[in-house]
Structure formats: C-alpha cells, structure tokens
C-alpha cells in the first residue's frame, strides 16, 4: 500500500502546514493589539478606557496564550466574536461562504467546457490562424488583471448593454434564474482567468498526444478527425490538464477576493477586505484561515490527483 502511504503523508503534511499557517495569520494580525482597542473605542478614548478594553477582551495577555485559546476555539468551530457586530464570527462568515461557494461553482462549470473546446481547437489547428489567434488571446487574457477584466465586463455588459446587473446583490434574488443571471459577470470573469492557463496547457498536451503512434494509426485506419480527437486523443490529454484544473481550483479561492470586490458580491472575499478596514481582527482571522484551508486542501487534492493519474509516481516514493 505504497499509494495509501503517500496520500497519508501528504495529508499529514497539509495539516501541519495549516497549523503553521494559522499561527502566521494570528500573529500577523494581532502583532499590534493597541490598534484594535483604538479602533473599536474611537479617537476620543482615553488610555484608561483602552487598557480596560484590552483587559476585558483579554488582549493584555501574551500573544501565545491568546493564540492557544483562539486555536482551541477554532478546532471546535468557534472563531470568537466579531469586534464590530458582536456576532459570533461563524455566524458572520457562514452565509458569505455559501455565496462564495455558489459563485465558485458557477465559475467552475463555465470554465470546463470553455477550456476543453478552445484548447482542442488550438491543438487541432496548430500553428494555423486559429491557434495563433487563440494563443495571442490567452496571452492577453493572462495579462489582464481580474479587477480590470471584471470592471470592463461590468462596463460593457452591465452599463452599455444593460444585460446583467453590475452590483451583485445575490441575497435579493427572487428566483434561481435571477441568481444565476446576477452571478454571470463575476463567474465569467473568474472562468476566463482560470481558462487561459488550462487552454495553453491542454493545447500542449493534446499536440503531444496527436503526434503519438496510436493517433496516427487511428487516422490511417480512416477514423474521421472529430472522432479521433474526441475518442482517442482528448481523454489522454485531459489527464495532465486535470492537475492544472486542481491548481486552478486553488487559485479560484484566492482570486475570488478581488472579483467579489469588483461586483460588491457578498462573499467571503468582500467580507475579508471590509473587515480589514474595520479592523475586525477575529473576522479577518477567520476568513484568512478558511481561505487558506480551502487553498491547502485544493493543493493537496492536486498532489493526490497527480499521483493517482500517474502510476509511475505511485512506486517512486
């Protein structure tokens, strides 16, 4: 069971990473505890009031003690209370996380056919006009920052054409269809940002497979080209591209922060940025930890996928 051991080791390392990351997050945010008291109490607070606030909140104790307490709460699902709204951080984050998950899912559903179709076209017509056009387009695509792309989409499709709302108030959606329509612009932005990598990757893989003997054999046998691509070449080219997809999944959770902010989408990214400016430390910690945890999980998934899909790696280590 070499394979099981590899997966188990990777999973253990991922948990250790998450633990260290949690410490980095906590210490980065709580390194300046004075800020929190000043922020919450306002500018007219006296030194005594600040000291009292710190004592009440337990901010006057050493950082490692507070970290230990925080971590103890986190593993039980308690992220502490928000400094601004007095709600529990879990209650604040959960609905936003659900929204973000829906957006990410939508983006992912758009991303898959988009990359497969364009990647295959690029490979089949390689070095031709279509390929040159697409590779120029993907190079431009990966050079345009997400917030620029999102803003441009909002301008073209939201303002000029009026086809989609510019501000995504997902909680106001009356029906499923309306929710989908609302989320289309941010989802398309995210899908394109991911697809540009996948298209390039799939193109290169597919070209390699199309040059292989069994594909040449199939063509010589007289199998029609679309069938050769779809049945013979594509399944084998998709295997390495799956790794990019898993990495894209990891990107998605980070990239969503900026795109959400562009469309004022009530997700975890918007919450994170807003809480940074409100100096709502417990919420920032919770958001940062959850985003990092999903990111680490997605990377673990990518690692395991690589091992699963490439039998040679199963015995190598």
């Amino acid at each position: 069971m070499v394979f099981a051991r590899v997966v188990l080791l990777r999973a253990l390392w991922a948990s250790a990473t998450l633990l260290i990351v949690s410490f980095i997050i906590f210490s980065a945010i709580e390194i300046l505890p004075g800020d929190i008291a000043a922020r919450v109490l306002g500018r007219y607070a006296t030194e005594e009031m600040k000291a009292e606030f710190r004592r009440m909140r337990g901010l006057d104790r050493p950082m490692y003690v507070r970290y230990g307490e925080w971590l103890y709460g986190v593993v039980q699902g308690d992220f502490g209370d928000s400094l601004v709204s007095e709600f529990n951080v879990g209650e604040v984050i959960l609905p936003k996380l659900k929204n973000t998950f829906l957006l990410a899912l939508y983006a992912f559903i758009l991303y898959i056919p988009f990359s497969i179709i364009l990647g295959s076209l690029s490979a089949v017509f390689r070095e031709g006009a279509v390929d040159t056009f697409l590779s120029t387009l993907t190079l431009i695509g990966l050079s345009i920052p997400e917030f620029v792309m999102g803003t441009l989409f909002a301008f073209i499709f939201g303002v000029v054409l009026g086809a989609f709302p510019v501000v995504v108030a997902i909680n106001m959606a009356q029906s499923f269809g309306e929710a989908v329509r609302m989320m289309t612009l941010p989802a398309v932005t995210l899908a394109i940002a991911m697809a540009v990598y996948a298209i390039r990757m799939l193109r290169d893989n597919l070209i390699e497979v199309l040059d292989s003997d069994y594909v040449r054999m199939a063509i010589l046998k007289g199998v029609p080209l679309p069938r050769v691509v779809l049945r013979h070449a594509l399944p084998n080219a998709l295997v390495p591209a799956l790794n990019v997809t898993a990495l894209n999944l990891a990107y998605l959770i980070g990239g969503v922060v900026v795109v959400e902010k562009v469309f004022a989408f009530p997700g975890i990214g918007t919450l994170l940025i807003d809480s940074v400016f409100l100096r709502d430390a417990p919420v920032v910690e919770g958001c940062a930890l959850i985003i990092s945890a999903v990111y680490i999980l997605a990377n673990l998934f990518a690692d395991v996928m690589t091992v699963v899909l490439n039998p040679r790696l199963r015995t190598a280590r």
Partner: protein
Amino acid sequence: MTSSAATRKFVTRAELGKSLGRVRRLPWTLVLGSVLLTIYILVAITGPLWAPFPYDRIGTGKPFAPPNAKNLLGTDQMGRDLFSRVVHGAGHELFLALTSTALAVVLGGFLGLLSGFVGGWFDEILMRLFEVLISIPVLVFALLVIMAAGLEASGNEWLLVGVVALVWLPRTGRMARSVAIDLVTRDYVLVARARGESAWSIVWRELLPNATGVLLVEFGVRAGYAPILIGSLGFLGLGVRPPTPEWGLMISENRANLVAAPYTVLAPALALSGLVISLNMFTDGLARVLGRQVKRF
C-alpha cells in the same frame, strides 16, 4: 550592428538586411515585447519632463471633461489631467514591479542555490518554510504582511516593494533550489568542491552562472505578475495612497464614474494591461530563446 559599420557612417543594404534577418529570427513575442517595454521605460523616465501637468494638479479642466486638445484623455472627478496621471503612473508602476521582483529573485535565488548546495537540515527547514508560505494564497499573504506592518503604513511605496518581494521570495527560492539540486551533481561542482572552494564561491562562481537562464525567466514571470498584484492591492485600497497616480488605484477611484467618464477607467486599465502583456510577451520570447519552459503556477 558592427563597429565598422558605425564608423563608416553608412549602412549598406546588405548589412541592414542581415541585422534585420537576425531580428526576424528571434521570436516575435520577444521583439514586440522588447519594443513595448522600451516605450514604457522611456515614458517612465522622461514622462515627468514632458507630461503637460503635474499628476496632482486639480482643476486643469472641467471635471469629467472628455478628451480635447488641452486634456488629451480628458479629466477626472477633480479636473486632474488624465493623460498626465497615466504618464506619471508608468514610473511608479515600473519602480514598484521591478524593484520588488529584483529583490525577490536576488534574495530567493541566493537562498535557493545555497540551500540546494548545502543540503541537510538547513535545506530541509528552509524548504519546509517556503512551502508553508507558498500555501497561503498570494493576495491573503500580501494582506497579512500589510496588516502586520500596520494599516497606517500601507501607503508607503517601500512597504509595498517589501510586501511583493516577500510574496515572491519563497517561490523564486524554491525554483532556484530545484536548479541547484540538479547542478550540484555536475562534474565541475565536484571538482570545485575537491579544490576546496568555499560554499560562497561555489554558489557564486559555479551555480549562479549556470542558473542565470532559469532565474531570468523566473524574473520575467514574477515581474509580469507584480503589476497585477500591485494594481489589485491599489484597487482594494491597500496599496499606495491617493493622489499617487498608480493605475490600479486610479481604476478604483474612477470606477463609480465609469458611465460619466469611461476614459478615466479605460486609460489606466489599458496602460496596466499593456505593461503586463509586454512583460509576458518578453518573458515568453526570452524563454524560447533560452530553451526554457515558462511555468506560471
């Protein structure tokens, strides 16, 4: 061009054809990328001399004036000249992106090569640390560094350079280390070791020259992504402060007026995307010439 051609003052048609042919054999992405980058750099250096207005002069025209002879790209909400702001922005953008990336590649490259050469527990600990740092999403990591430095300090350009450099450092470090691992088994490194050369001298004289290609491509990839990160931070209000003419910040400031004055957003958006496109084209071309692969993940 050869020196003899320069002293003769005239360039014969054959010679011109020859040098043109040499340029034509280079990947077109490298040629176009270099030309565009040169333009950006020229604008960045000379721009402040010929830009029609200072970047923070308000009331150079009516607010939201459309493009006209006086304000080539129109004006923003405060009547500041958009063209001048975009031109002034080039210097900020290039300074921030190139300084931070250079810092990361030099430090990361050195640490990575040393780590790969020294090996043992030093290598183990450093690489584990890098791995942990890489497993925080880029934007969240940048956010954490800014919060640790204090939000009040976030407008400082040197802090921003430090943030981006710190975000790239573990990534470039790991890249350099993977090269070093491959290089240390080569004969010339073994010979240098047998000669009794110090670790410093081996990293400097044997490893570095052979890792330059990879590090150059790595520099290109990171430099291409740096304006995106800096722009994103500016857009989120965590980068440089107004009235600094940073393009991401300008997009964020003028977004609410997109309908009334689309140029106020489109101009910095185009300038920012154009910079990243030229950096990426340059890197792609460079990688092809050096026979390297561009790894963007």
